[in-house]
């Protein structure tokens, strides 16, 4: 038996120390952790979804608190919660169906009505149905959903049908859904990369910023399809991940040019498209990206150049940003921009008077408002910033949006 608590603590401490960085790695680790939480947690005979939700939520809260800036953690926790709710819902529906089958359709109106009520109750207690669920559901149950009123009196009746088998089935389904999610996270960049040829034409010049695995795969996929195009890579101080990306792209045979971040404005007039990877996508269609991205977006807007964000769906965050430059940002070490050795005399220049003369600002992230983003390319297709809220409604349950506050209150 694996010690779940130990695993949770390990990831929490990793997150807190920023040993895990990058939304993809974080998302994968979180999902794997939650999977083991689900598989290890003891489920009571009744009300399994609710128990499981509580367990996941508890772990998720810890993880989110460990690194509130890493929105991918929260996203994955919400995704898993959503999975549990959906499975619980369909489980309950199955129970209804099974009961109906067992009753044999003996036009016992009252019984049927009861169970329809039950299914509706199960739904409404777990989640509001997503658009997806609504469309998939059979028409009759959809109509009943709107007409019936909820009564939770007969829950035991349904669960008592064959509780053990159903509980195992439920857990299995949830875990397989979480496995699908992990698989999605691992392969989303490949799925996105398949769209590359549709967006890059021959002889195009593309500007990118910093390092992103998704961008790399996207560009390389286009290259493999025999497109020939040039790439400008802005280095992305203070991490200089652009150097890494440039090296990898050059190794794959792409014509790559490294420029400094300050030359972005100078060069963007010769660029056909800006393609960047981001840290997180907010519900309003704004993005959180590496610091400096806002400048690139402004420059692209000034020259009317498409600003394209490639992102996996695990970066979709159901939160709306409020003052994101400050609230969703963190400060990195000043030593990345200014060497302590050289400026030690300035740092303590006024220590005697207590007034610090020198501050160094080194934020990690930048917020790009939705109006500067032209297009999102995700593993489920291309979308406008204005459509993000709808995607979010498909992937998250609205009850989960605020995880922390709900528990705190």
């Amino acid at each position, binding site marked *: 038996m694996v010690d779940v608590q130990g695993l949770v603590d390990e990831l929490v401490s990793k997150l807190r120390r920023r040993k895990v960085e990058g939304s993809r790695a974080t998302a994968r680790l979180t999902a794997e952790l939650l999977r083991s939480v689900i598989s290890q947690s003891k489920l009571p005979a009744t009300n399994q979804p609710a128990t499981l939700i509580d367990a996941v939520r508890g772990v998720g809260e810890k993880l989110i608190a460990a690194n509130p800036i890493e929105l991918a953690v929260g996203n994955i926790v919400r995704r898993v919660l959503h999975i549990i709710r959906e499975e619980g819902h369909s489980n309950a529906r199955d129970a209804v169906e099974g009961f109906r089958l067992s009753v044999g359709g003996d036009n016992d109106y009252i019984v049927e009505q009861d169970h329809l009520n039950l299914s509706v109750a199960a739904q409404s207690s777990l989640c509001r149905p997503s658009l997806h669920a609504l469309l998939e559901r059979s028409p009759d149950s959809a109509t009943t959903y709107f007409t019936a009123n909820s009564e939770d009196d007969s829950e035991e009746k349904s669960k008592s049908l064959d509780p053990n088998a159903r509980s195992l089935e439920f857990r299995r389904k949830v875990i397989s859904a979480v496995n699908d999610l992990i698989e999605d996270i691992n392969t989303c960049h490949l799925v996105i990369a398949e769209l590359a040829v549709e967006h890059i034409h021959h002889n195009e010049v593309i500007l990118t910023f910093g390092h992103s695995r998704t961008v790399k795969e996207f560009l390389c996929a286009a290259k493999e399809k025999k497109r020939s195009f040039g790439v400008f890579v802005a280095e992305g101080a203070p991490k200089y991940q652009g150097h*890494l990306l440039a090296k990898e792209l050059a190794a794959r045979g792409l014509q790559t040019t490294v420029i400094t971040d300050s*030359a972005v*404005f100078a060069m963007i007039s010769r660029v056909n498209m800006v393609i960047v990877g981001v840290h997180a996508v907010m519900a309003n269609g704004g993005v959180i990206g590496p610091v400096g991205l806002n400048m690139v977006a402004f420059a692209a807007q000034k020259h009317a150049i498409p600003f394209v964000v490639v992102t996996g769906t695990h970066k979709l965050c159901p939160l709306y940003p409020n003052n994101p430059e400050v609230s969703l940002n963190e400060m990195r070490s000043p030593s990345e921009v200014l060497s302590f050795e050289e400026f030690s005399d300035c740092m303590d220049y006024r220590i005697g008077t207590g007034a610090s003369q020198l501050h160094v600002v080194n934020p990690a992230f930048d917020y790009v408002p939705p109006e500067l983003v032209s297009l999102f390319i995700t593993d489920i297709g291309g979308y406008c910033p204005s459509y993000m809220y709808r995607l979010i409604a498909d992937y998250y349950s609205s009850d989960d949006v605020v995880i922390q506050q709900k528990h705190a209150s």
Partner: protein
Amino acid sequence: MDPRRASRTVSDPKIRQVGFFAPPPDRSLSGPPDPISTATTTAAAAANTSSSPPISDLSPSGNSLSPVMIPPPRHSSDTAHRPAPFPPASPPRRGTLSLTVGSYNNNIISSSPTASFCDESKGISVKVSPTSAASSFPGGGFDATAVKASSVPASGLTTVSVVKTLPPGFTETIVEKVGGSVEMQNDLPANSKPLKERTSKAERRALQEAQRAAKAAAKGSKLPATTSGAVASANAKPTKATKPPSQKNDSATVTSSEKKGGDRPPEKDRKKDAPHPRMQYDDKSRVEKAKRRAVVKQTEARNRVELFRHLPQYEHGTQLPDLESKFFQLDPVHPVVYKVGLQYISGDISGGNARCIAMLQAFQEAIKDYSTPDEKTLTRDLTAKINSYVSFLNECRPLSISMGNAIRFLKNRIAKLPLTLSESEAKAFLQSDIEQFINEKIILADKVIVKHAVTKIRDGDVLLTYGSSSAVEMILLHAHELGKPFRVVIVDSRPKLEGQLLLRRLVGKGLSCVYANINAVSYIMHEVTRVFLGASSVLSNGTVYSRVGTACVAMVAHEFRVPVLVCCEAYKFHERVQLDSICSNELGDPDAISKVPGREDINYLDGCTNSENLQLLNLINDATPSDYVSMIVTDYGMVPPTSVPVIVRESCRDQVWI
């Protein structure tokens, strides 16, 4: 308005007519300038001196303004140290050179003269028929050497090397200019006795001059400008039969503009005589030609960005040792100029004002040591000399626009020298002109800018600046001295990180500073109330041409509705227009991109710099569109970017009439 009108009406016909109509009869190529022009120039000069504060007032204050001044002593001492190893080494070196190179030695030894200089000599030399040139070989050898030696008194090394080193370089350049057939002739004798050849060249030149003077005199007042222009272009044709037509055009204009001497109308100069004809480096044949002339042996950078083929880019770090070793084989470049050139290469002098002042002071020195060779006119010969210096400096590092303006000013002054002046008087005249330019256009202008800009700083302001601009630094320091409470945000970017120097100086003075990378500019811009930017130049469409990154900062400030004030002296304004940062720019050392100082963990690009697919682009400047500029603070006051052409026009008029 009235006085200006009057003067224009006087001058205009003269200026406009030259080249198309008959000029006033008393004007001739080499003769004294007509009384009107001398009168006007002297009057203007007098007016100028009276209106401007006396120089004596200025210079002490100028010294106190440290940021603009360059500290030369260190380098002079450096160079003083250097002599020890080299003098003994140089003679053998020379010998080996000539031995190994064989018949081409002349080409190789002679490295310096500039594009314009050469072109001029070409234009001139064509006049002399090959036969006369050939016949003149044996004759004038020795006095020409003497001339040469006398013209380079400043070099400490006259003793040993003048005879050997100097002449070949000089002569060869001339030979080269003269064109195919003459060059062949020269080459034969040259192998055995470069000395003789050189002298013959010089002599031939002198002869030419004389001929031309005679011709001009004979023609009297007839169309001096047109003639010379026509002659130049006509001459250009035969010589350039081998060269591509585009080049022909260019050199023709250069030659004609060079020729203007003292008697060409200044307005024409202004149009034709671009300080350095901007070379397009994607034109292979021209590059080859320029390379043969170059003092600075540059190796082309291997891995160049396709978009910037038209700009020069060389391997950095390779030229300096080579040049240092050549310090004592003086080409026609004056040692002071040479030193400044080396400082440009090594980056010891950077920043528009510092570079410009260093150059002007070097020219001042050079003029002080200058003496007119026999049978030459000071105006023409000195202009040629200055041209060769300028092209040398240009090889060291592409000239900034402000330097171009300063050079134009200087050439203008040389051209306008009254021919009645004796040589020493003329030299003193020029030196004081240069002094005045430095004091008035740079140092005093900075003070005026500071005075204006300080009024825009309110208590509690947060001022953002980018990189390190001397004008902005003075403004901040002055405002601090006035006791205004404000904070400074210094935004900086790789690879130069000049902001760190500014940061250190400001913190040392007790200002409270925030330092940020350029990527953080949109984070920090929320709290900023004013943006002060320096500029390398302001172009007449309002575009601000400045250190790369300025455009980004101005753009973000514009988006955040923060006013952007550009501080720039009026001498940096230029009538050129530019829309992007690509057509004309400067490329820095690409290797500076791959290495991040102080961050050893960033080594992804180590060893990849030779990859065919990977290029590193180190742009030096960029162009900020005028939309982003709220106001330009200059010595004429605070103006919107739309008013730049007015200032350009006014200051050009100034230059013409000073």
